[in-house]
């Protein structure tokens, strides 16, 4: 009798488990289109939240608000503007959860579009899934040479972010060589990002006569970097590069100041390009270099975007490398939909793959899935008087490259 009770309880539980999602899936089909539902799986909690949040609130929320204030995206098929509705799930920074939620967005919620997950590994996980269901995926925070190699097999995947040999490090190497830098010390984080950047630097630097005199990888989670910085200091290299993430770039900066390590070039990324970097170190950031896309002086539209994203907000939210590219990607996506006049992914994909649209960056197009490097309005930045100026490539620079870096300010 009692056993029966227990078992019926189990049955109820299991049946409920099976039936509940069933019911939600059986919900009546959506009526005629009155909005564009965009699904996202983002790390709203957990250790990845800080990376996810830094792009999400400033860029995506602003973009949706702006488009909707205008009535939405005009889709000819429906003869009207459709506002964007965001459907956001929390993947808590776990790839397994992200892949599951991505399929939930596609299969169960049947979202019209997918916006990207956050982080390189996450994009690698998400791209094959999106492609499998013929969903366009315009990636943002992440992407690297590794993804370029698989892009030919993923026609629905587009990458907007600039990266090591696309086209940052060649530009950096040119700048350094021109100023006469001869030696470099490289510290890199033990992940794809670090391997890739140190690898590309290993090719681009020697090509221009810059010798790499030291190279060390550091695992993530190590925050006491002073032994490596001391070694770098002892190597007396002209250039110090830290290819790592903010949670190591910040302590690396602090510890460089502490041990009085002031090489002619101190470059770190990603991390240096954020407003919170300047907020944390203030005048000590003078002359420190990182990766960038534009500064306010690049163009009037750039200035406009900076106002839109950052005016009236704390300095911490700024990201001069990623934000313009993510934003341009969204503008490009919107333009492609309006051009297509439909929400059909295949049609929009073909348009995205072959068309040029005006975005915040100027004319923008994709070359075999990558945003063309000609569209980039900058690659290398340097903090000068509290502004993250573009210093390379030279034809896009907003300020003269200061070499060598000035001394750390007196405490």
């Amino acid at each position, binding site marked *: 009798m009692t056993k029966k009770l227990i078992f019926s309880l189990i049955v109820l539980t299991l049946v409920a488990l099976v039936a509940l999602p069933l019911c939600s899936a059986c919900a009546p089909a959506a009526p005629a289109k009155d909005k564009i539902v965009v699904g996202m799986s983002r790390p*709203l*909690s*957990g*250790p*990845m*939240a*800080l990376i*996810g*949040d*830094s792009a999400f609130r400033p860029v995506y929320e602003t973009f949706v608000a702006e488009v909707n204030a205008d009535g939405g995206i005009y889709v000819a098929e429906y003869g009207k503007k459709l506002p964007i509705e965001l459907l956001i799930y929390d993947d808590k920074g776990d790839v397994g959860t992200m892949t599951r939620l991505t399929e939930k967005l596609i299969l169960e919620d049947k979202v019209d579009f997918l916006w990207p997950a956050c982080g390189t590994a996450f994009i690698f996980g998400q791209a094959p899934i999106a492609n499998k269901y013929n969903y366009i995926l315009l990636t943002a925070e992440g992407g690297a040479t590794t993804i370029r190699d698989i892009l030919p097999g993923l026609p629905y995947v587009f990458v907007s972010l600039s990266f090591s040999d696309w086209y940052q490090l060649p530009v950096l190497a040119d700048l350094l060589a021109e100023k006469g830098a001869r030696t470099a010390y490289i510290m890199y984080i*033990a992940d794809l990002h670090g391997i890739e950047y140190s690898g590309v630097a290993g090719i681009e630097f020697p090509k221009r006569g810059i010798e790499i005199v030291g190279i*060390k*990888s*550091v*695992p993530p*989670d*190590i*925050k*006491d970097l*002073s*032994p*490596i910085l*001391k*070694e770098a200091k002892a190597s007396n290299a002209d250039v110090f590069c830290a290819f790592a993430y*903010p*949670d190591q770039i*910040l*302590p690396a900066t*602090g*510890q460089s*100041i*502490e*041990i*009085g390590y002031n090489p002619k070039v101190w470059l770190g990324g990603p991390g240096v390009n954020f407003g*919170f970097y300047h*907020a*944390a*170190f*203030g005048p*000590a950031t003078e002359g420190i270099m990182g990766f960038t896309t534009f500064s306010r002086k690049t163009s009037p539209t750039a200035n406009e975007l900076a106002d839109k994203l950052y005016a009236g907000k704390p300095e*911490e*939210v700024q990201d001069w490398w990623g934000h313009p590219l993510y934003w341009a990607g969204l503008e490009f996506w919107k333009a492609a939909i309006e051009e297509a006049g439909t929400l059909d992914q295949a049609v929009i994909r073909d348009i995205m793959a072959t068309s040029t649209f005006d975005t915040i960056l100027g004319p923008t197009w994709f070359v075999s899935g990558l945003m063309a490097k000609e569209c980039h309005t900058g690659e290398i930045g340097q903090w000068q008087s509290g502004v993250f100026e573009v210093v390379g490539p030279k034809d896009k620079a907003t300020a003269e490259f200061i070499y060598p870096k000035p001394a750390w300010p007196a*405490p």
Partner: protein
Amino acid sequence: MMVTILDVVIAGLLLGGIYALIAMGLSLQYGVARVLNISHGEFIMVGAFLTWMLYTVFGINPLLCLVIVGPVVFIIGFILHKTLFTRLRISSTSSGAFESRSLLATFGLLFIIQNIALIAWGAEIRGYAYLNISVNLGGALFGANRLVTLGFAIAIGLAFYIFLARTRMGKAIRAAAQDPATAGLMGVNINQVLALCFGFGASMAGIAGLLLSMCYPINAAMGLEYTIIAIIVVVLGGLGSIPGSFIGGFILGLVGSIVTYFEPGLALVSYYVIFMILLLVRPTGILGK
């Protein structure tokens, strides 16, 4: 060469001081109150964020924040023990049951505190520059903030050690750690003592957060990482022992610093290797009984 050795050793000691600081609170909470506090790192995070906020918004000197952060986090810990853990202790059938239930409860706390911090302070990484000026120690250069941290860690450890050894309350705490039931019979208000202990542990975590925020960037999700380090240090040194926390911290710091010097990629591996070997050789920690 001498300077290099000195460099590595001092770097290890400085790092060890931070580790000891992180671990002391946990050692106290587990050693006396028998709560293996997985949300320990969350209290560190709260302390760090309070300091950051007081410094950047109100311009209060981080070291002065001590008088605010310490008591505030103490009160949070004290109230938590009074409401949650006392209840759990009373309703648990055995001390083993209490340990596993309180461990799970602290897991829940981790989730709650972290989410509240995310809502209150956002997910961004934060940092500020304070006292990052270099100090010359026999040719080796170090940040003043790190030396201050080490100094504070030792001062807090010593103060608490003396408190435990010399005061009435300290004796009650030690009695409770040895045998709560008997201590209760001897007229010690056991619930009060345990809650105080938990509060002290939390407060130490908060102060550790304060000092950490001077050296490292902080964010709302940073807690678990520090909890793990704290657990390793506590186990290395012996549960419930304040000197043990220092020994454990210094060992870990030195090993980390030496291995980082030769092969940074193996620094974290070395933490776990040394920890696991020690656990196999001396399962109760270096100063454990």
